[in-house]
């Protein structure tokens, strides 16, 4: 009932969760539909905002052979959907010392030799809820282009759907994380202005001003704050 005295009917759809039919209100996300149906989710759920990658899920639609993959918190239910609980995709993260590894293909392939099993089937790309070019990133990793891998996987949430679907059993999200770390540590242009500023701070350039602020009373600080320079809009 939305308005006083006016009875409206919520439109309901039927979804199948682990093979069991449930009627749930249309417009719910897969995550909320599961909770509406009575599942209490303690794993496979996180931020509910499409950022954390915890609620990776797969589903099918009636009359369609494709197995779709998406985030349960971002995908509205549709009538006839086949749903499942998918808590996480196990994958081993290999240990490494970032200070000792080189930013190249040898590092990626020696830690994750299964990369070389890629047959370019593109199943990973089809599974990505972030619409990343996952297979292109595997291919870039194979030819040692760490910068390209970091670029292509910048928006990866580590949801693990590509890793779950990969016939070559590649642990993608660990390879991406390693690549981004290598990129940050060795390949990204160094922030020269930051280095200069840190040098100035070490040399005490700002010490007098800092000492003055520390000597002020709370009232004086408040006045100073109010009178601060604000960039024009």
């Amino acid at each position, binding site marked *: 009932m939305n308005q006083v005295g006016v009875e409206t009917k919520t439109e309901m759809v039927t979804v199948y969760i682990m093979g069991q039919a449930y009627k749930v209100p249309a417009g719910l996300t897969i995550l909320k539909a599961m909770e509406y149906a009575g599942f209490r989710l303690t794993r496979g759920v996180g931020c509910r905002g499409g950022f954390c990658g915890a609620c990776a899920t797969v589903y099918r639609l009636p009359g369609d052979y*494709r197995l779709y993959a998406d985030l349960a918190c971002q995908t509205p239910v549709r009538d006839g959907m086949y749903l499942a609980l998918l808590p996480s995709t196990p994958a081993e993260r290999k240990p490494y010392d970032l200070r000792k590894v080189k930013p190249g293909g040898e590092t990626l392939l020696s830690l994750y030799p299964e990369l070389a099993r*890629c047959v*370019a*089937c*593109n199943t990973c*790309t089809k599974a990505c809820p972030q619409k990343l070019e996952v297979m292109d990133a595997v*291919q870039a990793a194979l*030819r*040692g282009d760490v910068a390209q891998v970091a670029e292509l996987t910048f928006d990866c949430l580590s949801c693990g759907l590509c890793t779950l679907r990969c016939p070559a059993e590649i642990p993608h999200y660990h390879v991406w994380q390693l690549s981004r770390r290598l990129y940050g540590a060795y390949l990204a242009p160094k922030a020269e202005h930051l280095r200069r500023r840190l040098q100035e701070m070490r040399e005490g350039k700002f010490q007098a001003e800092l000492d003055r602020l520390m000597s002020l009373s709370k009232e004086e600080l408040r006045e100073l704050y109010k009178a601060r320079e604000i960039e024009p809009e």
Partner: protein
Amino acid sequence: MNRLVYFPGCALKDQAQGYEAATLAAVQALGYAVQELPRWNCCGTVYALAQDDLMRHVGPVRNLIRAQEQGATELLTLCAMCYNTLSRSALFVRNPENLRRINAFMDEEEDYRGGVRVLHLVQWLAEIGPERLARAANPGLQGLRIGAYYGCTLLRPKEVAVDHPEKPEIMEGILAALGAEPVLFPERVECCGAYLAVTRPEAVRLRVGSILLSAAHHGAELVVTACPLCHFNLRERRPLGAPRLPVAYLGEVLAWALGTQPIPEEIARTVGVRR
């Protein structure tokens, strides 16, 4: 300017970067604009021989689709292994049933229609023609005695061979047009040992030793190859006492001949280039 759509392959972006740079500059000097495929994946590296291994053809055929998307009817490769894998997969999907199954699997791509010819650098240069190469060859190769080494993947199986699988002369023709003196040697069609370089380097050393010895005995001052794996083995997997013959890529020699790249000092010294 004529457009040439190009598939690099992993080796050309890694160990064989010099081969790529030299070749592409030379090809451009011949009047062709080289356009690298905007997206490409590994060729597959080794052609799958299992009859039912459809999955292994998906990667190579996807590259053919990328070429098709660019409106290309020819796809240039510089790597002999990529040439072999891609052209054999192109043959595989000439069978309509194979093509149908591959296209059904790759439902996210446009269907492959079968119209892309995979072309290796040696074929492309041969088709440009010796007259045109000779005209462009300045300073030329000045009578350098070069043994062309073919290895396996440009010649076998015969369905994809760039020339006669046992008596090839296609590279010799190119080298002669560029001003070299080609040296025929029987081991030019033998296997270099290929990827046994990783698991059985000693087996590779035996192969490399007899190839280099044969080239040297027939008077070669330089061995030229068009395959990154042969190149690696011929240089890095030599047995003790092997002839100190320099080894270069066909594309590098082309660049020297066209003057887009100078002959490296160490090779000029070894072979005593007549300047």
